[in-house]
Every structure is written in structure tokens, then in C-alpha cells.
């Protein structure tokens, strides 16, 4: 298979099929919700939607989002911008992607989803030299991206100080504010610390983690668990219409900060958490 075709297949599969861990988490959540509740009906519809989209290779959600590629730097030449652009163009023609890219100055649509800086491509160092080089794609819709937030501690309106309790207040506040938007149940990627830009970057990277894993840092691992539990006790539920499932997962990382800043950055991902990795 040519590299362009491999990337095209990656876009198709990412757009039409949820990662297994996410689909499993939604299924488990559906079983937990009360009989005849709107929460159960919504989760059931989401599951049917996933099955149908996979069967027909059609988009899971009409907002096919921003495409962000994480490419192993060893593939810099093989999976270059030209190749990714070409695959994106083909994916748009085939209907795997909606025309979803608009010029910020004149409001005109780029008919092929290709423009300067779109799709987004990051070349990343591989963790070990022996691993096979991979390409990961994440597709994130506007409704979920709009719900990402950055707090700066101390935050007097929340009464949140520069400690882990303050961090927790911010994260739970973000959950409360997201209700009704950004199609719940969702997943939170969080970065404690860093500067503004890396905060968003690291928070978004947490969304690449498998829902079943937990942070290697025991303090963060504990936070991930307790915040998930607390968020789900808020009763917000699928689509904000009440229920036990508001979040499917919380993934937290921390980065050092300068003494004068303390950011808490939250990347919100809706249930349509489209991410996929292929070996090239």
C-alpha cells in the first residue's frame, strides 16, 4: 500500500470508528444508568451510532473536527506534509471528512480541508529506537474544543488557591460549565503547571492515553480516580440531561512552572473521542 493510501485509511477509520477502550467505556456506562432513563437512551443511541458508522465507513459525528497528526520523527520524509495533505484531500472527496476548514479572515471554506497549518502535524521523538514508527491521528470537534479551558491560580471567583485542592476546584468547575455543551460523556486531559501554550499542548496529549491506564505518578493517579468519581457524582449526565455518567475518564499530567504562574489547563474531549494509531 502506498503511504498516501495508508494515511487515507487512517483518516477513514478514525472518522468512522471509536477506539475500543472508549466504546467499551460507553457500553459499561450505559449498563450503569437507570432503566428507561434519558441517560440510558442517549448512551444506547451513541452505541448504535458507532456501530452504524463503522459498518458504513461514514463519519461518527458530522463535525469531523481539527485533524492533528503525531508523526514519529523517523517518518519525517515518508509522512511529510504533502502526503498528509493529499490523503486529507482524498478523504474529503470520499466523504470521510466534512468540509470543515474555514479561512479566519474572509470566512470562505477550503473545499479540501487543506490550508497553511491544516491539518496540524507534530513530529515527535519516539520513546525507544526499537519500536516501530507510528502515526497517530486525533480528530477533535469544535463543540468539544470550545469547552477547553485554562485557569490561573489563585482564582478568587472559585476560591481556588495554589494547591492541589485549588486544582481540583478548577477541574470540577470546568465540568460544571461544560454541561449542555460538548456532548457528554466526555474525557478530560489536564495539565497542572507549564506555561499557557505548553499547558494546552500537554493537556491535549493526555487525550491520547488509553482510558484504562493511570498516571505513573501515584499522586496524579489518585487525583485522576477521585476527580472522575466526584465529577460523575454531579448528576450532569449524558448531554447534560441528568444521569450517572458525565465523564468517561480523567487524565492528568504535571509540568514545572515559574514561581509567578500557576496554570491549570483542561482539554475537553466529547464522547466522539476519535483517535487512532497505525504503524507505518
Amino acid at each position, binding site marked *: 500500500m502506498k503511504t498516501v493510501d495508508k494515511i487515507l485509511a487512517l483518516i477513514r477509520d478514525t472518522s468512522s470508528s471509536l477506539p475500543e477502550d472508549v466504546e467499551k467505556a460507553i457500553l459499561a456506562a450505559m449498563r450503569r444508568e437507570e432503566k428507561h432513563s*434519558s441517560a440510558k437512551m442517549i448512551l444506547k*443511541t*451513541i452505541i448504535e*451510532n458507532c456501530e452504524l458508522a463503522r459498518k458504513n465507513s461514514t463519519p461518527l459525528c458530522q463535525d469531523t473536527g481539527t485533524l492533528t497528526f503525531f508523526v514519529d520523527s523517523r517518518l519525517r520524509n515518508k509522512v511529510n506534509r504533502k502526503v498528509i495533505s493529499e490523503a486529507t484531500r482524498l478523504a474529503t472527496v470520499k466523504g470521510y471528512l466534512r468540509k470543515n476548514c474555514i479561512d479566519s479572515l474572509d470566512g470562505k471554506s477550503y473545499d479540501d480541508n487543506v490550508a497553511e497549518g491544516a491539518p496540524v502535524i507534530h513530529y515527535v521523538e519516539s520513546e525507544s529506537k526499537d519500536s516501530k514508527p507510528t502515526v497517530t491521528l486525533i480528530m477533535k470537534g469544535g*463543540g468539544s474544543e470550545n469547552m477547553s479551558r485554562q485557569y490561573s491560580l489563585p482564582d478568587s471567583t472559585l476560591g481556588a488557591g495554589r494547591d492541589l*485542592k485549588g486544582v481540583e476546584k478548577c477541574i*470540577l468547575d470546568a465540568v460544571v460549565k461544560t454541561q449542555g455543551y460538548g*456532548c457528554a460523556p466526555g474525557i478530560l486531559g489536564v495539565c497542572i503547571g507549564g506555561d499557557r501554550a505548553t499547558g494546552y499542548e500537554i493537556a491535549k496529549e493526555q487525550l491520547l492515553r488509553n482510558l484504562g491506564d493511570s498516571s505513573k505518578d501515584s499522586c496524579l493517579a489518585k487525583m485522576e480516580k477521585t476527580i472522575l468519581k466526584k465529577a460523575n457524582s454531579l*448528576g450532569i449526565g449524558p448531554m447534560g440531561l441528568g444521569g450517572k455518567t458525565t465523564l468517561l475518564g480523567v487524565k492528568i499530567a504535571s509540568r514545572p512552572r515559574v514561581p509567578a504562574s500557576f496554570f491549570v489547563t483542561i482539554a475537553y474531549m466529547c464522547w466522539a473521542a476519535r483517535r487512532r494509531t497505525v504503524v507505518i
Partner: protein
Amino acid sequence: MIELKYPYDEKSIRALKAGDAVSITGIIHTGRDKFHKYFADGGKINVDFKDGALFHCGPVVVKNDGEWKVVAAGPTTSVRENPYEPKFIADSGVRIIIGKGGMDKATLEAMRKYGCVYIQAVGGAAAVSAASVKRVQGVDFLDEFGAAEACWHFEVEGFRGVVAMDANGTSLFERIESLSREKYINIVNKSR
């Protein structure tokens, strides 16, 4: 699940309660930002919304052998239409508004006054919503507004949603939001 069939008459609409799961069969029309602005600016359309349904949706529609086919049709965020909706409800006689995220107090009040409900479709569930569209009857403003913003006329069967704002002035969003805020305060004050 409560079945709603076109025409959506005032009596059955007023009987719906926030939290009811519903399944819609009949005609629904799509319309979002440009559509609302057009009406607010005094524009006219040759579509009868009386006892009808309006869907805040930017669908993906393709033409296959001369026939329109809906590939994806999920709801879009409704708050953007808040400034226009009360007047649209009053003028058009629409009974059902379908969307995502709910609408404001003024819209809720217009729904109470004229007998209309807001139905939350399952956000993002584009494939299922598209599958419930059995036929595309036609389209207005395709050239003027573009495919994603045009006014499409869909014949749907078993289109699912939840009544989130009813015609008695109850908003499920409001209720869940105030409950969750109370719980939030309890949690953050209790922890550690």
C-alpha cells in the same frame, strides 16, 4: 418512548414533560444561523412551519443518481439562535425545535406561550440521525446559504431525542444545572 407524528398538534406537544424520551416521525426542516438571520431581517420562505418541526442542524448531504442522500445529520448548538427564536416561534407556529444544548429564558417563555417544545437530539450521533432520514423532500436556499446552512426538508422515521424544555416552562437544563452547582459546592467544601 413517546411517539410524535406530523402534524405535531398543540395538544400532544403541551402534554410533553421535560425528561420524556420521544421518537419523531414525519417532516422536519433544518435551519441554523443564516436561516434565522434571514427571517429576522424580514425574509420569507415558502414552507409552512405551522405544527411543524425545526432542526438546528448542518447536515452532510450528497447527490446520488439525482437523489439527495443524507450522510450525517446531528444537531448543532442552539444558543446561537437565542436572539431570533422567540419571534420565530410566535410568527411561524412551529411546535418542535430540535437542537443541542438548550435555549434561553425568553425562548422558554415563548414556548410556554405558543405551545412548543425543545428536543435535545443526541449530540454528534450523526450516523443514527442520518439513518432515520428516509427521504429528502427538497431544499431551500441551497445556493444562498450553502449546503450546511440551507433549509432541508427531511422525512424522518423514529428520530430520537429527549424533551429538554417543555411547554409548561420547565427546562431540564436549568434543573440539572442548579442541582449540579449545589453538589459542586458541597464537594469542594468537603474535600480534604
